[in-house]
């Protein structure tokens, strides 16, 4: 039995700040299989991006991996050398960021930025790299790529810029792409197009995808599995269909109830009461307890991740009182 493409175990990523240690990622365990699309969902500040940066070794100081393990194709990445990580980045694991206005260097031409990404991993001539760059733009649906290669980022629309970033991420057909809210800054139609194409391209090349978003509706339309993150911890994991049909964690339930499309017309959207906790001052025990309607004395300790009974598909939840289907029909 081969190990999944990516296995994260008990990852802790900390920021030592003047106010204290921020545990941005606080014991995360995840797996991603080859070709799988995993949605990583949670409110802003829950630690999604930092999880992504930890995998790629892209943490800016004072961020550091305090403990845990990240195994990619069986290789341990925590503690790997800078040079090893650099060779991995863009080649085996690629990343796309949220703001397409900011991810391309404003003073370098598009061809420069694509060609450097090719040549850093493959010893090919400038001419061959140029041809590959044009082909890469064509793949992501950018018209007249030869001309567009000579343009600067500001001459592209937001959607087109994100396509360029996607083209760059897919240059070397990586085994894994981490997409950090890549459509959040775009308008809805373009968002849908890009999600569709990204899914298609990854399926073609067998690329696994970690799609980070705060919007569960997006995962509903594309993911295989979902991991819900709250205050630096994964609180629920499972197949997208199962989790959305029957959320077990009160927080997941709150997220689903606040998605507009899932509510009947005229019905008020249910908002999760309260605010996301400050990462410097997490509540004792389950970090969700001040906002949770099911909280009781047991929730003063941190719940472990447990398999939800009678569930297959690796359905796990971190809660003392998971919501069960039966319970829902009663209430």
């Amino acid at each position: 039995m081969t190990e999944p493409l990516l296995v994260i175990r008990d990852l802790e990523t900390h920021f030592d700040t003047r106010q204290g240690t921020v545990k941005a990622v606080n014991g995360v365990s995840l797996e991603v299989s080859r070709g799988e699309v995993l949605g990583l969902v949670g409110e802003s500040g829950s630690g999604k991006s930092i999880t992504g940066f930890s995998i790629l070794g892209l943490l800016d100081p004072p961020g550091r991996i305090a403990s845990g393990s990240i195994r990619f194709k069986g290789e341990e990445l925590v503690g790997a050398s800078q040079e090893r990580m650099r060779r991995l980045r863009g080649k085996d694991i690629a990343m796309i960021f949220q703001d397409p206005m900011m991810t391309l260097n404003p003073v370098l031409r598009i061809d420069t930025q694509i060609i450097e990404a090719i040549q850093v991993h493959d010893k090919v001539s400038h001419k061959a790299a140029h041809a590959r760059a044009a082909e890469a733009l064509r793949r992501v649906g950018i018209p007249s790529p030869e001309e567009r290669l000579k343009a600067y980022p500001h001459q592209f629309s937001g959607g087109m810029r994100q396509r360029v970033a996607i083209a760059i991420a897919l240059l070397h057909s990586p085994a894994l792409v981490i997409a950090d809210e890549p459509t959040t800054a775009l308008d809805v139609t373009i968002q849908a197009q890009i999600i569709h194409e990204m899914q298609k391209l990854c399926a073609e090349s067998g690329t696994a995808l970690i799609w980070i978003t705060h919007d569960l509706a997006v995962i509903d339309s594309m993911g295989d599995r979902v991991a819900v993150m709250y205050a630096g911890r994964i609180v629920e994991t499972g197949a997208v269909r199962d989790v959305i049909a029957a959320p077990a964690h009160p927080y997941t339930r709150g997220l689903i109830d606040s998605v507009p499309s899932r509510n009947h017309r005229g019905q008020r959207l249910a908002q999760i009461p309260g605010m996301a906790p400050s990462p410097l001052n997490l509540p004792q025990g389950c970090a969700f307890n001040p906002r949770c309607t099911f909280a009781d004395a047991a929730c003063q300790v941190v719940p472990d991740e447990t398999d939800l009974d009678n569930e297959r598909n690796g359905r796990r939840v971190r809660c003392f009182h998971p919501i069960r289907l039966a319970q829902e029909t009663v209430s």
Partner: protein
Amino acid sequence: MLVFIIRRLLQSMLVLLAVSIVVFVGLYAVGDPVDILLPDDANQSERQAAIRSLGLDKPLITQYGIFLGKAVQGDLGTSFVFNIPSIELILSRMPATLELALCAMVIAVLIGIPLGLWAGLKPGSAADEVITTGSILGFSLPGFWQGLMLIMIFSVWLGWLPSNGRGTTGTIFGIETSFATWDGLRHLLLPAINLALFKLAMMIRLTRAGVRETMPLDFVKFARAKGVSEPRIVLVHVLKNILVPIVTVIGMELGSLIAFSTVTETIFAWPGMGKLIIDSINKLDRPVVVAYLLVVTMMFILINLVVDLLYATLDPRVRLKGVSE
């Protein structure tokens, strides 16, 4: 592009006109050059003759009219003191000042940018502390004091470098310059370092701040995510971004180096324009002062123009007014 340049040059004519009026009126108000030019025992009729021959008996507006009439023909008046055309006098001193300013700027850029990069990439490190503290000293110690210290250490104590005058000059491409001889270079070094120190501090500050501002940006992270090596990220991605403010400041500072090297030129007896202007002000040699300020203004205008043109090549988002339409 051409339209842009022509438009800018026309604008500069207006600026020159305004400067000439301000300077002319200002100097008129400062004092009477005749008192300084004539010997103390000159009698009244000698005074009158001198005043008339310098054209100082006419009303201010007429004097300015005459000046302007000649100026458009390229004649900016004749020095009261040397009795040669003031523009000729200034141009004869210009190479000395230009080579001093250029040399200072090259020192500031070649040392300041790498140090600024180093400090900015390792904020809080020992190297950063040393470099930043050094730049504060460069900023805050007065230039004349730095000059005197340089003379004391390198000329008086160590006896390594001369501290006085321009030394032997040679000609390169028909221009008389200190770069041509070893002796000339030795003479150039101390005044150039003196002029460079402040600019060096400024380059360090500017580069360090630029690096600190640029490194956390997403495009740097994205470049890393592509696997681009750290040296290339710094030298291509980051440096190209911070070059825009750096080039602006180099331009402005080069102008001010050329225009205001007076203190250094005085300390090191450097026979440039700065020393000339100080002497001319002391003697109230109006035509030279006016001509000097007009030449300096023109120089600022030209440097600004070059900076704007460089801008457009460094930052593709900048569109020159009058070009894009």
